[in-house]
């Protein structure tokens, strides 16, 4: 616990990371609260198209007359949901398999390593594209598909970490005391890897947000009626010069999320890394 407090204090001193936390918190609150009182539904296409920003539509309307503010709020919600899902699923899977492989070694390790190799070899973008076709383009499917590729990263990192931790005295003594694999992993290995895991999870979220945007751009990402910031940008990027507000608002939010996450990841790394 003492270490936790120390890490927290260090993290608080990291100004950019704190800015990231604040920005992200504000954004999350906004996308949760705004829909409660905002009069325009994100699916209501009855408004006139291409209204420039005004009092009723602060961010204007798009080509079919959807309120852009409602759109961006909805897109941000789903983008964040995708990101969080990816980070939870991928991290859980990766940490579980990685620590098992690193601790047990031998056959388990070989099996997990082959599995990660397999996922490394298969080109993500092709498989993601096919899977979106085989299943559907809902945000949840896309999140699961992205998770399927991100878990290898955390598995690799956790495996290395678990391997070195397994040699340490306190693990040895726990084992000597008759603790089982599950207990050793959850009680002894995981608490000592939180830093690595947290940093990696944060950065994976940042990457997932961008990868989803990229997939949407080639038409292989989230499909309507679900949406995402990537999709909204893709739908409006051609308005870049003519009606810049249609492009720059969703773009700005995406960059904001991505920057904030990167800063937080950086701050976490600094906070955990510095040994005392």
């Amino acid at each position, binding site marked *: 616990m003492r270490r936790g407090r120390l890490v927290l204090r260090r993290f608080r001193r990291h100004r950019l990371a704190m800015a990231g936390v604040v920005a992200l918190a504000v954004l999350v609150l906004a996308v949760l609260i705004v829909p409660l009182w905002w009069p325009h539904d994100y699916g209501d296409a009855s408004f006139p198209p291409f209204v420039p920003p005004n009092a009723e539509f602060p961010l204007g309307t798009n080509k079919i007359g959807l309120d852009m503010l409602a759109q961006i709020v909805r897109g941000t919600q789903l983008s964040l949901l995708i990101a969080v899902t990816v980070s939870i699923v991928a991290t859980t899977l990766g940490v579980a398999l990685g620590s098992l492989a690193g601790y047990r070694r031998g056959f388990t390790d070989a099996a997990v390593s*082959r599995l990660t*190799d*397999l996922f*490394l*070899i*298969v*080109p*993500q*973008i*092709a*498989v993601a*594209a*096919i*899977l979106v*076709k*085989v299943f559907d383009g809902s945000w949840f499917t896309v999140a699961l598909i992205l998770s399927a590729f991100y878990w290898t990263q955390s598995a690799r990192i956790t495996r290395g970490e678990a391997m070195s931790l397994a040699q340490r005295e306190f693990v040895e003594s726990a084992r000597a005391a008759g603790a089982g694999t599950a207990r050793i992993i959850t009680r002894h290995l995981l608490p000592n890897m939180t830093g690595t895991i947290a940093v990696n999870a944060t950065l994976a979220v*940042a990457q997932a947000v*961008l990868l989803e*945007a*990229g997939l949407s*751009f*080639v*038409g*292989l990402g989230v499909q309507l009626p679900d949406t995402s910031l*990537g999709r909204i*940008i*893709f739908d409006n*990027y051609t308005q*870049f*010069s003519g009606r810049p507000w249609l492009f720059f608002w969703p*773009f700005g939010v*995406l*960059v904001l999320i*991505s*920057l904030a996450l*990167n*800063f937080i990841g950086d701050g976490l790394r600094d906070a955990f890394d510095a040994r005392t």
Partner: protein
Amino acid sequence: MGEDELNLTRYVLRRLAISVPTLLVATFVCFLLVAAAGDPLAEQRSRPGANQDAIAVLAHELRLDEGVVPRYFHWLGGFLSGDWGSSIALEPVFDKVTSAYGVTFGLVIGAEVLALVTGVLVGVVAAVRQYRLADHVATALAFLLFAMPVFCIALVLKDFAVQLNDWVRDLGLTGLLGNPWIRTSSPESLESHGFGDLVVKYIGAYLLPTLAVMAVSFAGYSRFQRASMLETLNTDYVRTARAKGISPARVIFRHAFRNALIPVATLFSLNFGVVLSGAVITERVFNWNGMGSVLVTAVNADDPYLLMGWIVLIGATVVVANLVADVCYGVLDPRIRVG
């Protein structure tokens, strides 16, 4: 030395012995996936006036009337003997995929090398001048490039290029540089008279996509190099060297830089397959008909053998790149080979 080489060969062989079966399993999994994507001829079948007999013949020829497992082994047999099958438009997959690969490879390799060189330089400077202006600028740039989707970068580049070409016209330089000079889409040819002209044409054709591919990789390399450089700068031997009074420049380049390069070189290799398939977006924006265009076509048409050709080629690239990375690492850092 002799024993070392033997060890290395053995190591490479062992890695290969693991990678090749993995690649095989990967092809099987992908084959099942591709088959699940749908019947590529369904749309043709459903047209009024469609000649069902002809479509049946075509389906038979493409072996779509067989079970997926026998079809896989038939494909694999053909594949290993050099026959990669044909697309549903009956074009040989091998020619189509390999030529697209050539296009993408040509685009990516230059961009990646440039990104590596600039990234490493910026990373070193940022590390040496940690927490000073140069470091902050480099960090900000890297974070910004990290945070931006690549097609947004491409968009800005294109607008700028059209403007630049207008200036070239206004200045009457079209005779020298060509009209248009900077191209926003792939060139039909790089036919040129003389070396100077070739350079000009090459720059015109490759500038924008290269910058777009570079942008993302550069951010990664510079951050990675900075971190790795900081680590080496803090190692005992560098501190010792410094304490001995060796000039800082010498310490940085003779001692720290070389060691800090190892992880980045490895990253370059590991990344290559990802970057290659990630060029899909850049290619699309700049209308290069490389792997990206083949992938989008194949996915939209549910074209089974074309997709398989694509997947295997990229998969093989990843295997080879990883092997190169391992070897680099093995040569540069002998400790790895033991494990």
